[in-house]
């Protein structure tokens, strides 16, 4: 009996080990590139394309840029290597960025500026101002994202002297550069491109509260978009473009609200009735009026200014009287919102019609982000939303995305590309990318 038992014991143990090696597998069809060729993919765009996040360009953001995520998936269908102008490990903090350090008692976040690590120099360009220059990048380049660039600037020859992020990619030093952005990105042959330009043509006006920048003229936008797409597709290259999000769909304009500020004011002074802003009139002039929920306060508005005596107005408290309205630069008021939306809609009409005429894939970021704002987005068991910090998509600057947000965008591009070119590029795993980093470790 003992022999039987021990023999069976061994058999059983061996059997279990054998079974442990059995693998359950699901057959998946081999992914296909369809009618597109991804052997050299380039990405054209602004800060979103560069991987800008938390108010800065730094290594971790670059490594999680949506073009790099798309390219990694393209490599499963024959895509080539994709090289980004990464900051090196010693200068990983790049331009510097915002870091969350904790929360105030009222739940509002506390942030801290991480110091820049890749600043090379700063020069003054006459008639323009100061330009911060970064450590030069040399080598292969597939991701041409340049933070801050407008479509309006892509054919402007001196631009390489005015934007430190662009200057960093060029061989020459500011102020000697004369290569336009469009010529630079198209200089070397490529087979596929993504193009997400145009955001800054509206966004920089909006983030300045309609006070520090101007909207790009609609006709200029149309002319340059046509020009750039014609050039990008001049050798029959295929590609994908994205529309421009509604600027009001980002937390930068939806986190600090008129209602919340007024409630805080009334807590201290129950007699306070309203906030006043310096709002745009239909004739283009500005005058003070009562703020409503349709006026959007920017994320970076220092709310502590409210109620402070304004010397120029006889010591009246800031923000709560018609004589001391909140400055224009802190508010995208209702009229400015409408103006911005009108321009964005016109830009998007151009983008969609030009892309359609060239047979390009279109990721409609405008519709997508408005849907996220209205309904949220559930991916892999995570509830994502447009809420600041807790929403998981937007980084600490309230405009640019977290790695998880960029992964979502990458997948939307991939879906559009797959549809247009009958391809089946595998989607990226969104849950493996992080949201906003919270201070501290797990206990």
């Amino acid at each position, binding site marked *: 009996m003992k022999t039987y038992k021990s023999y069976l014991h061994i058999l059983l143990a061996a059997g279990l080990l054998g079974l442990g090696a059995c693998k359950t597998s*699901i057959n998946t069809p081999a992914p296909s590139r369809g009618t597109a060729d991804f052997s050299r993919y380039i990405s054209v765009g602004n800060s979103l394309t560069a991987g800008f996040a938390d108010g800065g360009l730094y290594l971790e953001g670059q490594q999680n840029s949506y073009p790099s995520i798309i390219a990694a998936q393209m490599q499963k269908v024959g895509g080539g290597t994709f090289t980004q102008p990464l900051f090196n490990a010693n200068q990983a903090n790049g331009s510097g960025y915002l870091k969350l350090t904790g929360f105030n008692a009222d739940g509002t976040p506390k942030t801290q500026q991480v110091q820049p690590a890749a600043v090379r120099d700063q020069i003054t360009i006459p008639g323009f101002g100061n330009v911060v220059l970064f450590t030069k990048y040399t080598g292969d380049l597939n991701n041409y994202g340049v933070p801050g660039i407008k479509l309006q600037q892509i054919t402007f020859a001196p631009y390489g002297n005015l934007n430190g992020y662009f200057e960093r990619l060029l061989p020459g030093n500011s102020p000697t550069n004369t290569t336009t952005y469009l010529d630079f990105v198209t200089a070397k042959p490529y087979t596929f491109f993504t193009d997400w330009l145009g955001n800054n043509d509206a966004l920089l006006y909006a983030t300045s509260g309609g006070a520090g920048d101007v909207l790009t003229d609609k006709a200029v936008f149309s002319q340059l978009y046509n020009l750039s797409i014609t050039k990008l597709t001049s050798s029959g290259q295929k590609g994908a473009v994205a529309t421009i999000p509604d600027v009001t769909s980002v937390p930068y304009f939806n986190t600090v609200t008129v209602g919340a500020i007024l409630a805080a004011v009334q807590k201290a002074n129950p007699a306070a009735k309203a906030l006043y802003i310096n709002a745009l009139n239909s004739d283009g002039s500005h005058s003070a009026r009562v703020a409503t929920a349709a006026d959007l306060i920017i994320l970076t508005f220092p709310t502590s200014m409210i109620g402070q005596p304004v010397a120029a107005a006889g010591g009246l408290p800031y923000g709560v009287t018609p004589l001391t309205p909140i400055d224009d630069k802190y508010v995208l008021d209702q009229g400015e919102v409408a103006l911005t939306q009108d321009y964005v809609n016109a830009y998007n009409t151009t983008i969609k019609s030009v892309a359609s005429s060239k047979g390009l894939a279109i990721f409609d970021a405008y519709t997508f982000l408005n849907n996220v704002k209205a309904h949220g987005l*559930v991916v892999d068991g995570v509830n994502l939303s447009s809420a600041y910090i807790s929403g998981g998509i937007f980084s600490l600057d309230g405009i640019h995305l977290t790695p998880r947000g960029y992964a979502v965008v990458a997948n939307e591009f991939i879906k559009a590309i797959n549809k247009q070119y009958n391809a089946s590029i595998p989607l990226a795993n969104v849950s493996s990318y992080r949201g906003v980093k919270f201070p501290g470790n797990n*206990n």
Partner: protein
Amino acid sequence: MPAIAFGQGFQVNLHGQKQIGMGHTGTGLLQDGASILFNPGAVAMLPQNYVQAGMSPLLFKSDFNPSGTTDQFRTKSKVATPFTAYAVWGPKDARWKVGLGVYTPFGGLTDWGQDWVGKYSLESLNLKAIYFQPTLSYRVTDFLSLGAGFVYNHGSVDLTRAIPVTNESGQDGQAQLKGGGHGFGWNAGAFIKTNVGLTIGLDYRSKVNTTVKNGDAIFKVASSIQPNFPQPNTFTAAIPLPSTSSIGLGYRPSDKWLVAVDVNYTKWDVYKTLGFDYAKNTPTLQDTYSPRNYKNGWSYRAGAEYKATSKLFVRGGGGYVTTAVRDGYVTPEAPDANRYYLTAGLGYKLTKNLDLDASFEYEHINSRTQTNIESQLSGTFKTNVYIPGLSLAYHW
């Protein structure tokens, strides 16, 4: 009442090596002490007294392929250990017998790891239900016996999932819900011998409502938001283990052959929600109620035993089980679908009083492509289960 429950994937039908070998049939048979579970009504008809125990190490191997990708995420190799122990005794030629069964009718061990796409739904799950069933059976006539048992369940759950909160090192938070509880139920059956050699068994195992009270709710998150996940914390959850109604037939076409069929009907519709009620809530940490809305399931089983020599028995069987999980409700905790299984067994009489039985089962859970309505986790699950097993039965 919030509830967690064991999906069909967690109904464990490993109740005796002789019965496993014959495709999990036994409601209408008189094989051994496992009748305590299969049919307390049959216990009084058993020809002998029994003390027996067995174990069926179970390997649950699931694979998940997220929609639109070529990725494959597989469960880690972990061995669950369902077991059985039965004792049946009655005076020789008495009309009654008493018995005690200890068995594991529900349980599950799934570990998807911390890096897979569905980590926010589930990382790992270890569920156990151990039933203790004292039983009394009475032979009313030579052709009819009845029996019933009281069921005490000790249940436990240990579940981990990732929390989508990134800490400063880039890691997710993690929730662990761990606790035990108990519940009560009963098991009753009837056994009929017909004069044409056919035996018939009817059995009803009741629902067992089990409540986990004050289980540990452990949340590990970035220290700056730990106040949103207060610690220590506890949870309460109900585990409604479903009832099973069975009918089984047995027949001996010859001295050497025994054939059997069983049909089970499991009332899974008691499983409406997966819920966790936390003792301390915050705006971030709310009680959760995830819809499950299971439907009732059927099992169709058949098996045969061949007496090769006076000492050696060869068994085989198989069956088909319909899923309890509706479309849109498939989750990694129970990646369920319709399934078939095949079994084989060997029995050897070591001595006149001692049986050694070995069994092997292969279960294939059909691949199922789903988007979960709650998590939007979208993809294809496919599962194979491998279950060897061994038991010893002493009878006199």
